[in-house]
């Protein structure tokens, strides 16, 4: 996930705090990590994170849980995410860095660990249309946290449109999917999510998270 940081802000308001974060303490690594975080923010160059190359074949052979690939467009990186929990129709996927995406039948509803997370979504009307492959209008509400810790709802007016029906092959999955497009706008931001739907579930999608991160691609490689 894209991390925003403003070195001057940290320097201006954290300068005296950093002194306390330096030095020794019985907390050991924990206290050091605050100093290290500050140092990293002040001095680290904004280089692209190089993800460790992942042996997909080996992972697929040695594990059995659902897997997906996550592509973050803004940072041009691809990450493998694994399902760690299923709660009814909801599933939680974690990356190796323990950043989380929560899905409801494949539709993204929340993220965790991204800095400006999507905290929750109320998208039942959109989901009904998308998963039953019907066109129509719906409203969706996406909830975020403000800088001072309050929840804020951003409602979007959306239109769901149907696209082509095409074969789909990805990892262990081989089927036919229906393309559904959801165009949303709230007057300030607008985005278009695309979903490849099969059997009431989304197998591959491009979904918008927030204005900072933009959209991410999620493609299941094993159900």
């Amino acid at each position: 996930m894209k991390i925003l940081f403003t070195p001057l802000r940290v320097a201006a308001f954290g300068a005296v705090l950093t002194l306390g974060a330096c030095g020794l303490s019985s907390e050991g690594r924990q206290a050091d990590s605050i100093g290290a975080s500050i140092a990293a923010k002040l001095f680290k160059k904004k280089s692209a994170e190089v993800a460790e190359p992942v042996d997909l074949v080996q992972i697929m052979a040695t594990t059995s849980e659902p897997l997906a690939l996550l592509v973050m467009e803004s940072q041009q990186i691809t990450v493998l995410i694994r399902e760690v929990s299923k709660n009814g129709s909801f599933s939680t996927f974690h990356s190796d860095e323990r950043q989380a995406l929560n899905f409801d039948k494949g539709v993204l509803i929340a993220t965790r660990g991204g800095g400006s997370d999507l905290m929750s979504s109320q998208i039942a009307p959109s989901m009904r249309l998308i998963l039953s492959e019907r066109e129509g209008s719906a409203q969706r509400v996406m909830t975020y946290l403000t800088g001072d810790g309050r929840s804020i709802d951003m409602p979007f007016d959306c239109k769901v449109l149907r696209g082509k029906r095409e074969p789909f092959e990805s990892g262990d999955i081989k089927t036919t999917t229906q393309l559904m497009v959801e165009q949303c706008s709230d007057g300030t931001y607008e985005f278009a999510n695309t979903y490849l739907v099969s059997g009431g579930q989304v197998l591959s999608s491009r979904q918008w998270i927030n204005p900072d991160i933009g959209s991410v691609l999620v493609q299941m490689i094993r159900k």
Partner: protein
Amino acid sequence: MPLPQRALSSWIPLRSALMLGVAAAAIAPSAALSEDPFAVPRAQSQNLYGLPGLIDMPTADIEADGQLTTSFGHFAGTTRSTLSFQVLPKLTGSFRYSALKGYRPNNYDLDTYYDRSFDLRYQILEETDQLPALAVGLQDFIGTGIYGGEYLVATKGFGDKLRVTAGLGWGRLGSNGAIGATGTRPIGVLGEGGIPTYDRWFRGDVAPFGGVSYQVNDRLSFKAEYSSDGYLAERGLNGRDNFGNLDPALFERKSSWNFGIDYRFKNGNQISIYSLYGGEIGAQLSLSANPRYAPLPSGAEKAPFPIAQRRYADLGWDLDQTTTDKIRSNLRSALASDGLIYEGMTLTATKATLRLRNPKYNAEPQAIGRAARQMARVLPGSVEVFEIIPTLKGAAGSAITLNRSDLERLEHAPASALLAVTSVADSAGSVPAFEADSKPQHSWSLAPYVTVSVFDPDNPVRIDAGLRLKGSYFIAPNLELSGSVAQKLLGNLDSVSREIPSELPRVRTDYAEYSRQGETAIEHLTLSHFGRPGTDLYSRVTAGYLETMYAGLSGEVLWKPVHSRLALGAEMNYVRQRDFDQKFGLQDYAVTTGHLSAYYDLGNGFHGQIDAGRYLAGDLGATVSVDREFSNGWRVGAYATFTDVSAEEFGEGSFDKGVRLTVPLSWALGQPSRKSNTLLLQSLTRDGGARLNVRDRLYQRVRDYHSPELAKEWGRVWR
């Protein structure tokens, strides 16, 4: 692709209705504020007074609610440092510290004159398509008044780039080109200074001022203004009152026209260059931040563990010691992996009560949520009710009860849905016993420190730096032995040469002596006890060397029901003044002080507090403080103390007042942390209205786990 930004000026604040116990509309969207957390407000362009303005003149513009701006400007020997805060959407407050080199009014014996001033600006009308924005302002309205002035100003934009300002000024802002007068302006100092100069406001000569600003592009803008400020004092032309420059004038005012260029950086900070009064060059740096917008609002910490599917254990598992011991130790490790401390648990087949310590998360609901997730992972399936009791130095805070079925059902629902089914109650009677870990709770640290003291005319910024060794050891869960020793390595806090006169016992004015003799200082060494004397009651008793200057005994009791916005407290201290060398010795001066306090959550982030009682010098009176708090831990506030000490006895400043600012580390870093830094700008250190600086006062910590505070940051419960 984002569409053009909607103007922020049209939003109407709504109180978020996160009231506990409201079961209705559990899944419906919470009352939303129609604002955009991703559109960081654009900071206004500051003038040399540190407020939105042209160059020296004000405009009718204001900053976004909560904006905090620091400006450092300089020209013609005058340096102005201003801290401005948008207290309310329409009200701006500023505190300014100015240094005028070469300005020497009557009886002034130093080369540089230092002045503190407070400003207020209120925007009466917001700008619309037809009407300009209209604002009224009071400049330097408390105190000795070198910058004293008032204004009424209107600003209108024409097109996207041009803004035109015109206004009328009084006092300082009416001293050049006056077109009339509204009465006469008194010139005497009220009291000993330090009092709002209400007898002057909008009286005396009135003069027009105005100007334009032109926004060339996103970063660069040009400004031009006609100034109504005659700079009479700096030019030695104000011989009527005490403020006349006896030396040659600070600069020559050849013209009333000023010009400036502003450059704005991407993060909102600005740098400006000015051509002033026909022959002077000036420059200014402005830094801007808004506590309502954080770099990483939801934090960069790793994701919490999901609510796991229940695993059921054999019937009767709760009676098997081995099984329950294993569960306790599993939960201890699970909580530790999230940075939380397991202190104890009462476990039955259907209910678990966890005694929890949270050293990590600034947002208490996040600690509760993470603890609940770990309980759901570790506890057998038959446990349905989770009761979490956070402790504050061993004293139970509140009891927060959640049902496991609700956690499972609402894991992916909005946070407000969980709030509706969570109950908060007093924990009296249900607190589990403390289960000792292998060693008692303790911590120590050795770190550098910096102490900054400002406002003394001899040396306006004094800094001491050194090393501090701190330690804390809990003899019992709620009995803490704590100490801090500081070794000064370098600094000039002790170089106060001027004798500070005081008609009162010298309870605070000997600070320089403490600094001079306290190279190695025991900052505090105390034994503290924290208790729960009864339902809704919290207590603290601290004994030992309580603070730098005083040792003795301090006791406090606080009454605060978990749902209440009101809290009442009583504190009593018996103390003796410590020796200047800050070791174990004591001086003769002893005093009994005490206060009755009322605390009230005024809503919208505002907190009021009144403390009435007896202060260190034996004076009787009250302190009123108002703070604006943001749920992320930022606090900006002001206080004033009025006692039976007359203004003459108190001395310069008339009464004690100050401004304080708290910045949480977690806001700047985007990582959870309970550390914060508090900056106290006290008008002057005098002996009237002085309160004991004892640590661990109850209210600030106790309220964190009560329902009004929990509701404010409840959005983080699932984080």
